[in-house]
């Protein structure tokens, strides 16, 4: 195992965050604060409690997930797309590193970054609404699994994308609607029955539901199902990455 390589890739990616600290950390924090002000304080004060939780507090897990998903995907996809775009990827491809080490370095850094952002947002949320975390261990498990699997997904997009537009395409067209319709701002039970069924096909529902359960002990779907879904998604991403390296998809001709 070429640990030195994993280390330098990881450090290089983290350094990029450090150099662009404002974009990397400040912007998700600012946008989340805006959500809190608008939905939590302004509109939220007119909305009744959901399952005994004030609306402002209710949306915290969903908001964190929203940032986590978009950040994981954009960090990881940019991290691998940019060297492909500039051509510096030649060095990684010609180095004595295995695909696993490459993924560990890039995805590890992207996941770390989103985890940090997630925790910062959590702390920011604490300034606006009273927070309680009933299952802190499970909260960390959900946080970690989400960061890792969506960073992997971002890595896949970064390899798949052939231009900057495509890089934005999936987050914009698929992830954002799925998160918004996945119960970030409402409980699934508030929907008409037919839509509740439709919603169950949205994988993000399981993420948010499980994550919210770790905070307030309330969930739309069973916690076990949530964990299973996220592990399933993680496995699918792993399989796809494995296939990409095996065939050299868009990396090697």
């Amino acid at each position, binding site marked *: 195992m070429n640990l*030195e390589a994993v*280390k330098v*890739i990881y450090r290089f990616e983290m350094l990029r965050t450090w150099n662009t600290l404002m974009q990397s950390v400040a912007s998700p924090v600012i946008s989340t604060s805006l959500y809190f002000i608008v939905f939590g304080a302004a509109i939220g004060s007119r909305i009744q409690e959901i399952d005994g939780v004030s609306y402002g507090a209710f949306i915290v897990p969903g908001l964190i997930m929203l940032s986590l998903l978009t950040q994981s995907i954009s960090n990881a996809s940019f991290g691998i797309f940019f060297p492909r775009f*500039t*051509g510096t990827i030649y060095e990684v*491809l010609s180095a004595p590193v*295995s695909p696993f080490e490459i993924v560990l370095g890039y995805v590890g850094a992207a996941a770390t970054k989103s985890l940090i952002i997630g925790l910062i947002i959590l702390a920011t949320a604490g300034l606006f609404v009273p927070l309680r975390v009933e299952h802190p261990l499970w909260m960390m498990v959900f946080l970690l699994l989400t960061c890792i699997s969506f960073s992997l997904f971002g890595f896949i997009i970064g390899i798949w994308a052939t231009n900057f537009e495509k890089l934005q395409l999936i987050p914009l067209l698929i992830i954002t609607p799925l998160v918004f319709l996945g119960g970030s701002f409402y409980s699934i039970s508030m929907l008409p029955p037919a839509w509740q069924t439709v919603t169950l096909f949205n994988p993000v529902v399981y993420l948010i539901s499980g994550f919210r359960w770790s905070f307030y002990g309330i969930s739309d779907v069973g916690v076990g199902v949530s964990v299973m879904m996220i592990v399933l998604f993680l496995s699918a991403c792993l399989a796809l990455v494995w296939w990409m390296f095996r065939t*050299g998809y868009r990396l*090697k*001709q």
Partner: protein
Amino acid sequence: MQPVIEVKDLCKTYQDGLKALDCITLDVHRGEILALLGPNGAGKTTLISIICGIVSPTSGSVTVDGRDIITDYRFTRQMIGLVPQELTLGTFDLVRNTVCFSRGLFGKRSNPAYVDDLLRDLSLLNKKDQEVRTLSGGMKRRVLIAKALAHEPRVLFLDEPTAGVDVELRKDMWDIVRRLRESGVTIILTTHYIEEAEEIADRVGVINRGRLLLVEEKHMLMRKLGKKRLTVQLKEPIARIPESLSSYDLDLAADGSEIILTYDIRSSRTRITALLQDIKNAGMTLKDLNTSQSSLEEIFVSLVKEEA
């Protein structure tokens, strides 16, 4: 001695059907400078890219120090450094950081003293805390060389190292290459500047349309394929070549005061003696004689033309 790189029946057909390499077999000797010469699109970069692991071969095999580049890639790749043709560098990286990154990527522990020495050798030491984007093109190429050498490779590939580089820097580059060779590094460079191959290579391989036309020791190649020219300077200029000399391959030059004979040193009879005799018989007086050997450029052009 076992060659440091053995390429056997290597073929590469790209997905779009382009046959970039057509059954190439090549040995690279330890410690030599091998120049791969060929026009654009000949397959030079593809060959290098396969050996370095950037492109997958369609068929055939490559070993580095006796180990296969695919099954034993960790070993073979840490032996090799690659300086790519394009100036591909992360624009915002600091010089020192990008070189240290390369070293770590190839599995070597961080060694700031070695990196400093390397940067000093490449006249980059005073630029080490600068962002890559602030450097000139020539300096960027040096950074690429530093990156390629960061993990102390035994084999260095230089893909068109002097393309778009001014004369002075080109000379510098050649010095760097020579110094590396002295330290025992095997160097394979591609170029379409023949003078480059002529200047620094020990052996020259000519590639065209994915095929290796020949690999030959440089001097041997020039001797084997070289045409020589004999220039005969006359005391009195002549208007045209006399009838009696029509059986020779002659040209008249310098307003009739020079007769040039082109002959092949490979042929058993160069007919020089006879020509000189016939010139004398035609009543002309010789002023001076000189011979010149054709350059690699001429050899190359004739080889590629033959192929086409």
